[in-house]
Structure formats: structure tokens, C-alpha cells
């Protein structure tokens, strides 16, 4: 643990690579790649959180909401529009949108123009309440009409029908937009108060996604999203691909003929197709990760990064030194959230479906936070490493737990109460292992595995 700086980073990433290779070798390369792909996505999310916490000390516990916004983007960009639903209630929804804008404008006008006092507040209240019922009167029938349109398989407006890869960008934009709004409202709050506010807002976002079926199908989920990469089944049917596989696995096929050869080749094609698809994803994700990482590294090492760290250390003093703290906080909040949004869209793309109930704080907020803190907050590579390590443990803790229980119970009598109980509880080892590893890492490397480096400019 005496390694410092870059050599330490190289060392820990090598270990990570070895872990993945072990999984590839002993479990399967498909498992390895599926873990790797999610490692990359997690790393991007962790970078987003690191921008907010590590750079600027903004305690955002609403990660889940921003990831979900990315997911919504994936759905709205890639799904084809549903013409019948549009016909049924599209106009109503648009109308409600226009009305909302008008009511908002009216309120804004009142806020700007009227002299403050009791009357002003009363007028605002009346306009808001009246507006609410007016909007509802247009919105509710439209929503009902849309949701009644073939509810079992559709019942929503659909999306734009564009290639899903655009959604990565759009997901970032969605998240940024909402972050702007949240930031305007809540960034005045400090530490844990900001945390609970962001947590609350993300719960509100998720509730909306679960219940506004006309937009997202709600808890009925949208499955079968497009892919930016080929489908396994396409590949399995493709002659060209079979040719590649034959070439690639030629050693495996050597000396086999007839039926045996066909069976082995068929299995190889299936395996190869899965691997190929995953590799395509790996390529895309890596490109995004590298781009985000590069921008992060450049930003943190620049005077901008110095200013932001100064703000984190002491806002009062930074303001007295002429730095616009509010603006910076807003900027950082938006950037970090956008990065999370991008990762969220990527994740939904990889899953191939949008399921709002998947967004649980444990998985999408705390786990990401753990990644950042264990990896090393304030250090970009640390966040990336945290993303890799924690996801790896999260997935591998399960088989390891099962294996561990298997070993423990080996000597016990078959069918004994204790043995059955232990084997049945094996799944809970996942949590224990996850927790134990986290605690150990944090114990022996308090600043994270790759601690924030003193940007020693001496």
C-alpha cells in the first residue's frame, strides 16, 4: 500500500483486469464481458457523482432519478410513435402542455409585475389552483383515452422511432434540464438537507414515471427496445458470421466431422454471437467512458478544477475571492447529472427495456455512492476504479456466497436442519460479503483505493 499516484493506479487496474480474466477463464467469457459492460456503465455514473461530490462537495442523493431520466430518454427516442394513441389523446396532451406553459407564464408575470404583499400571494394562489383544475380538465380525458388504447401491449404515445444511440445524448440533456431546475430550487441547501431534497425529488421523478402510463407505460414496462448493435439471433443465422466463427474456433473443430461437428459448431456460433454482441457494446461504452474521463481529467487539473475545489473547502472565502459560488454549483450539478443521465440511457439500452420499478435507491444511489467513496472521491481514476470494483463484487458476491456456504456445509450431515438453513440462506451471503469487502477496503485505504491526489503544483 505504499505505492503512490500513477503507479498505484496502474497496479489496482491491473488487479481489476486480472480479476476479470479469472472470471473469464473460470466462469466464462460471456460472464466476464457482461460484468465488464456494466462495470463501464457504473464507472461513468460514478464519474458523474464524483464531479458533484468529489470536486464540489455537493451531496446529491438523487442519482437514481437522473439515471431513470436517461432510461426514459432511451424509450422516448427509440420506440416508434403509436398513431392510434396520438389520435386518441395526443392533442389533449399537447393542449395540456400549452396550458401549463400559459399558467406558468401568468404566474411569472404576476411575480414580476405585482407589488408584493398579501394580495399578490392570494392572486398567485388562485391562478395556480384554477390553472391546476383547468389543466386537469384537459389532461385527464386525454390520458384516459391514451391509456385505454390497447393497454396490454401499448397504451402510451410511444417515442420518436430514432436509433437508440441518440438517446445517450438526449438522456444527458434530460438529466441536465431537470438538474438545472432542481439546482435553481435546492442548491441553497447545505449538506444533508440538500441530500434529502435531492432524494425526495428523485422519488418524485420515479413516482411520475411509474404512474404516468401515457408517457412511459408506467409499471407495465416497455420491453424490446432497439439495439445499437446486432442481435444474437441475426448473427446465428448469418452465413458470414458462421464463417468467422468457424475460423476463430478452428482449433476446437479440428478433427471433428459429421453430426459432432455440426453440434459443436452450432454451440460455437451461439457462444460467438453472444460474445460478439457484448464486445460491440464494450466498444461503444469504452468510447463514452474514455471521452467522459478525458474531459473530467482535463477539467479537474485546470484552474477551473482548482476554483471548484476551493469552493468545496470554503464557500464563504471563495465568494470573498470573487468566485460566483452559486453559478459554479449549478454548473457542476448540471454536468454531473448529465453524465449520470448518459449512463442511465446506456444502461437502459443494454437492458433492452425500461422498467421504472427497477429504480431503487439502494441500487442506483447508494451503490454508486459506495463506488465513488471506495474508489476515492475527488480522483477521477478512483471513481472509475470504484465503479469497476463494486460492480464486480456486487455480481460476484452471489456465486462466491453460494460457494462459501457449499464449503461450510460440506462436512454436515445431509438434510440436517442447520445444513438446510445455511444453504437456504446462502443468498444473503451476497449482502454480507458486499458489506464486508466494502468495510475492509475503506478501513485499509481510508481515502479510497485511489485517494484524491494533492494537485501539488510546487
Amino acid at each position: 500500500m505504499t505505492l503512490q499516484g500513477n503507479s498505484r493506479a496502474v497496479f489496482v487496474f491491473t488487479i481489476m483486469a486480472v480479476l476479470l480474466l479469472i472470471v473469464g477463464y473460470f466462469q466464462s467469457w460471456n460472464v466476464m464481458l457482461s460484468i465488464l459492460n456494466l462495470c463501464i456503465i457504473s464507472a461513468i455514473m460514478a464519474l458523474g457523482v464524483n464531479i458533484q461530490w468529489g470536486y464540489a462537495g455537493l451531496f446529491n442523493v438523487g442519482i437514481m432519478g437522473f439515471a431513470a431520466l436517461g432510461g426514459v430518454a432511451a424509450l422516448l427516442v427509440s420506440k416508434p410513435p403509436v398513431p392510434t394513441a396520438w389520435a386518441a389523446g395526443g392533442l389533449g396532451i399537447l393542449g395540456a402542455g400549452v396550458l401549463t406553459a400559459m399558467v406558468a407564464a401568468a404566474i411569472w408575470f404576476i411575480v414580476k409585475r405585482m407589488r408584493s404583499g398579501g394580495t399578490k400571494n392570494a392572486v398567485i394562489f388562485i391562478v395556480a389552483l384554477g390553472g391546476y383544475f383547468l389543466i386537469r380538465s384537459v389532461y385527464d380525458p386525454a390520458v384516459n383515452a391514451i391509456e385505454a388504447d390497447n393497454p396490454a401491449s401499448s397504451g402510451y404515445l410511444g417515442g420518436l422511432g430514432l436509433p437508440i444511440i441518440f438517446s445517450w445524448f438526449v438522456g444527458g440533456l434530460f438529466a441536465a434540464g431537470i438538474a438545472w431546475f432542481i439546482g435553481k430550487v435546492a442548491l441553497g441547501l447545505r449538506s444533508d438537507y440538500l441530500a434529502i431534497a435531492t432524494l425526495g425529488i428523485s422519488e418524485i421523478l420515479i413516482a411520475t414515471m411509474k404512474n404516468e402510463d401515457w408517457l412511459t407505460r408506467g409499471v407495465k414496462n416497455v420491453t424490446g427496445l432497439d439495439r445499437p448493435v446486432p442481435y444474437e439471433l441475426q448473427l446465428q443465422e448469418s452465413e458470414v458470421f458462421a464463417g468467422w466463427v468457424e475460423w476463430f474456433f478452428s482449433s476446437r473443430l479440428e478433427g471433428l466431422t459429421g453430426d459432432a461437428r455440426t453440434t459443436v459448431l452450432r454451440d460455437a456460433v451461439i457462444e460467438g454471437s453472444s460474445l460478439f454482441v457484448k464486445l460491440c457494446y464494450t466498444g461503444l461504452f469504452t468510447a463514452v467512458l474514455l471521452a467522459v474521463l478525458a474531459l473530467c481529467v482535463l477539467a479537474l487539473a485546470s484552474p477551473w478544477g482548482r476554483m471548484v475545489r476551493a469552493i468545496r473547502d470554503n464557500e464563504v472565502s471563495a465568494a470573498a475571492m470573487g468566485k460566483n459560488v452559486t453559478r459554479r454549483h449549478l454548473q457542476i450539478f448540471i454536468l454531473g447529472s448529465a453524465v449520470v443521465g448518459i449512463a442511465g440511457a446506456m444502461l437502459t439500452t443494454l437492458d433492452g427495456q425500461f422498467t421504472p420499478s427497477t429504480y431503487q435507491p439502494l441500487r442506483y444511489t447508494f451503490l454508486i455512492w459506495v463506488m465513488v467513496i471506495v474508489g476515492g472521491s475527488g480522483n477521477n481514476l478512483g471513481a472509475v476504479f470504484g465503479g469497476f470494483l463494486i460492480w464486480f463484487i456486487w455480481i460476484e458476491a452471489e456465486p462466491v456466497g453460494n460457494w462459501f456456504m457449499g464449503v461450510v456445509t460440506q462436512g454436515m450431515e445431509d438434510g440436517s436442519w442447520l445444513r438446510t438453513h445455511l444453504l437456504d440462506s446462502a443468498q444473503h451471503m451476497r449482502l454480507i460479503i458486499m458489506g464486508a469487502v466494502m468495510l475492509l477496503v475503506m478501513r485499509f485505504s481510508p481515502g479510497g483505493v485511489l485517494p484524491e491526489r494533492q494537485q501539488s503544483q510546487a
Partner: protein
Amino acid sequence: GGHEVKMGVILGFTGPIESLTPDMAAAAELAMKEASDSKMLLDGKVIVPVRGDSTCTDAAAASAAAEKLITSDGVVAIMGADCSGVTTAIANNVGVPNGVTMISPSATSPALTTIEDKGFFFRTAPSDARQGQVLAEVLKDRGITEVAVTYTNNDYGKGLSDAFATAFTANGGKISISAAHEDGKADYSAEVGALAASGSKHLAVFGYVDQGGKGIIQTSLDTGAFDQFILADGMIGESLIEAIGADLNGTIGTLPGSESEGAAKFKEVATAGGLAKNDGPFMPESYDAAALMILAMQAAGSTDRAAIQAKVMEVANAPGEKILPGELAKALEILKNGGQVDYEGASNVTFTEVGEAAGSYKELEVKDGKFATVKIR
């Protein structure tokens, strides 16, 4: 070893339905053990179940678990998954691409009927669309014309309540309020308050027996908001009666399956097999899902994944000798000798052409602190 064959069991062992899944897994593993013990499966092969955690909510983790089972452990088929969301993800991303048969005991979302599964996805639980109709009929026959509805806010609850609402209103019934509830939350007084305000006498609960659904019933009884309940399959379970007691008398409900010998037989088998429970939700379906995979394997005469898939329909449906729980040995024997079976199992399995249970339902009523079957629909 050479005479071992692995089968996957993917269920949400952690997460929101973690309290249901151990029993489901145990039921499935019971079928596997039964087949192994018979020494009749493909010249005495032994089935080794391999569990994977679907988490019920996290598609990524579920896919990873399935990936490991399929590509690392090399399971020949998968019994699972449970919640519709993760089930879809596993089928689309892992199961179908790798050509592995999946039979889900509990994914009931109507949307699963139409996924592109290339014939690799089956379910022993019927789609909720059917149950909604059945429930509406039950209420019509009993002359109940107005109900308040609460459903668990997921694809199962929402889908079922949609289906029920359509059928019920078509029959001339009125739904006074339809309110979602989230599972695993601390308190349900807000929901019950709203439901009670509707003024209806009956409350239909489409949830899970030891989740929010139970909380709703408990709170309703405590506050005196409702005392007449209508329950869907997820809510049927002895544990509900254990927890609530005599107040439940008069409650009606539906459950897939029939009061065939099958269901009774399953209870016997489960008790004999030393399971902790013998009638938990989705336990019969789990047993059946596993049994079907085993029989298909025997029918195919090989552990080849594609071969198994090709035989599932054949063993599930007529023609052939009817097979009940506990009779796997017999079925294996028949198949070995080139005969045909029609697996009925614990939940009266008959697959539609897209490979899901067609669904006959029991109409139940709680009498003297017990669920009693009134009628089969």
C-alpha cells in the same frame, strides 16, 4: 460428473419478494430431487439445481446471474424468473440468444405473451388478462356491482387491475376507486383512508400475500373500513389467514389451477418432501415448471438445450397419460419407453400455443378460517 445435469433456478432471493422465493425454489428443487431419486432420468442422471438471484427489480443483475448460469455453469434449462420485468430482460438478453428454455412460474404480465421468444419462453402461470375476466364473472354471479380496487404498483397488479376493470365494467359493474399501493412500505393508512372514502362495501386486493396487500387488509379491518375482500392469486395463502384470523371469513378469491387431485397431491408431496410450506404462492407452479423441464429432457432423450425446448409442449399437453405431482417416476418411465404423457401437475398445466398456461381458476371462499374451493372456472 458424467451423470450430473445442471438446471437453473433464477428467482429474486433478495429484494422485494425475497420472502416468497425460498419456498418457490424449494418446490422446484423438490421436483428435481424426485426425478433424480427415481434413477429413471436418462439412465439415472442426477439433477443439480443451481440458484441465481434475479433480485426481482434489477435487470442488469438478473441478466448477469442468468449469464453465469448459462455460460459458466452450463445449465440445460432455467426455471424462472419471477418478476415480469427481470424475466423479460433475461429472456431477451440471455435465454433466447443462447437457446435456453425458460419456464417461469410467476411472471404473469400480459406483455410476456407477445415477446419474441423463438419458442424458448414458457410459463406455468397464466396471463393476468384471463384472471381479470374470471374475477369479474365471480362478482357478477354473486351480485356484487360495486367495488373499490387496490393493486400493487407493478406490472402484475396494474395489468390485473386493468383486465379486471375492463371485464367488470363490461358486465355493468362500477369501480368506485382504484388506488395503487407500493409493496414493502411502512404504512398503508393513506391508501385505506382513500379507499374507505369511496363508500364501497367490497375491496378487491390485487397484491401479494405477505406484502402490501396484507398491510392493506390488516389496516382495513383495524379501522373498520372494509370487512369484505376479493382477492386475486397473489393474495391467496394460509399465512394470510394465520396473520389475520377469523375476520377474513367470507372473503372470496381466485387462484389458478383446479381443485384437481393435482393440487391436493402437491400438498402431500411437499409435506412428505419436508418443505416448510405446502401451499405458498406460486409453489405449485414452480414445481410444475421444473417437472416440465425434466420431462421434456426425458422425452428428448438428451440434455441438449434445443432438444429440450422442442419437447416442452409435447409433454405439457394431451395426448398422453395424465401425470400428477409425485408421479414423475412414472412419467419418466413412460417416456423412456417411447410413450406419451400429458403433464397436469399441481396447477393443471395446459399450454396455449404461445407456451403459457391457459388457466383454469378456482373460486375460493374463506370459511371457518380456511380457503375452500367453491367452484372451478
